[in-house]
């Protein structure tokens, strides 16, 4: 029974630490996912601009250079672990400027650009999967590339990639735990603090484990509801102005 005694004791003693850790974790995950989504949307759009014959050569080469840079960005951030990126960026900036970054700020930066790299590919896939006919129909009524994207393509893309975005969000809730290496006070860090004082690692991280699960489970449920809302109604009303039946028969 020693296990439960310690769990209760630690939970009581460290509840404020755990809660603030959970708050920091959610802050990092939410802002990181939102900023990452925006980065992914922008890079995804740029990377799917078609290079056409009637483009000026300056525009063409600019687009090629930008595409190359974006590809390098994506490959580097997808190809290295976030825990290593955190160390390189945090200590790199400190070494280069002599001023250490704010830890939470550094955490948000790292999660954002990391998520951005993945989201860019998700958005690109989403745009590619839209039927060519949607682009052609928009062009045929005289829409520009930007108008086509803004009013026709992106609304469909965003709806289609919502499950993948939710996935990224859940991954971020869990993966922000690696930011403990730069001493960001998130949930895992809170667990380490609690465990270290009494050398009760199993009990402390059992509590942390439960909190993580509650967070991710709640988020997936909320996202599911949100998704269903976005789907809209599957029935529609006919617009008729006909008289009611008994009035029409004149009885």
């Amino acid at each position, binding site marked *: 029974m020693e296990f439960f005694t310690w769990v209760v004791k630690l939970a009581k003693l460290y509840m404020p630490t755990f809660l603030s850790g959970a708050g920091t974790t959610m802050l990092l995950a939410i802002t990181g996912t939102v900023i990452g989504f925006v980065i992914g949307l922008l890079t995804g759009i740029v990377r799917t601009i078609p290079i*056409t014959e009637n483009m000026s050569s300056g525009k063409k080469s600019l687009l090629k250079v930008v595409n190359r840079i974006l590809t390098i960005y994506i490959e580097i951030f997808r190809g290295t672990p976030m825990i290593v990126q955190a160390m390189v960026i945090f200590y790199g900036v400190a070494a280069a400027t002599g001023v250490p970054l704010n830890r939470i700020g550094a955490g948000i930066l790292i999660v954002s650009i990391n998520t951005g790299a993945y989201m860019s590919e998700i958005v690109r896939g989403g745009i590619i999967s839209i039927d060519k006919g949607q682009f052609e*129909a*928009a062009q*045929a009524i005289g829409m520009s590339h930007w108008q086509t994207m803004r009013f026709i393509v992106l609304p469909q893309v965003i709806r289609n990639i919502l499950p993948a975005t939710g996935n990224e969000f859940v991954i971020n809730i869990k993966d922000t735990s690696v930011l403990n290496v730069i001493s960001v006070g998130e949930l895992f860090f809170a667990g380490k603090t609690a465990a270290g004082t009494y050398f009760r690692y199993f009990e402390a991280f059992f509590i942390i484990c439960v909190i993580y699960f509650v967070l991710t489970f709640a988020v997936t449920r909320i996202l599911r509801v949100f998704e269903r809302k976005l789907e809209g109604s599957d029935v529609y009303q*006919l617009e008729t102005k006909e008289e009611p039946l008994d009035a029409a028969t004149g009885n």
Partner: protein
Amino acid sequence: MQQPVIDIRHLNKSFGTNEVLKDINFHVNKGEVVCIIGSSGSGKSTLLRCVNLLETPSGGEILYNGKNILDDMHDTTAYRAKLGMVFQQFNLFNNLNVLDNCVVGQVQVLKKSKEEAEKTALQYLDEVGMKAFVKAKPSQISGGQKQRVAIARALSMEPDALLFDEPTSALDPEMVGEVLRVMNMLAKTGLTMLVVTHEMGFAKEVADRVVFMDKGVIVEEGPPEQIFNNPQNERTREFLKRTLEKF
């Protein structure tokens, strides 16, 4: 003589080394209904797509009200807004309901107010018999209904001419009639129409002129009576024989 709305001169189109259109010359006058017929792969759809620049021609001229639009590619979007297009696969905007499909172009491209655009859209949706379905999403209506909405969407832009790319080829046989009836009605209102079609009955009844294409060239062109009853060219005769005698 009046100036044609669309006048195509020496048009060429190649995909790589594959020459799809070879020295095409023809025109469409105001108020005229021109049908392009021919077997699959003859280049008729590519020709139509070149006319509104969904494909960039490899050479030649497209004169629109006397002005070569290939000279100045900057005005592409304004030119496209003046030509309506109806696709084989309908291509209704999946994220918008029936009404908004007909409104979005008017508001974004023609810069009309939303109220004005909705009024115009409802007028044309009524004309094609789809006014009751304004709130439906494209996925909730049948193929024939989709195509009628697509026609209303194109008409809502109040174009100078309407291009049809095999508008009934993706439809169930029982839905072909409803779309052809709408097109017939439009032809009678004096709309300028350029129609790529496999519906020989429609071409015969409605067209002012029929163009027969084969292997990327215009083989024969003339009034429907001549093309269907007295074709001059051997290839035209061959094609019509194959198409009209199904059994």
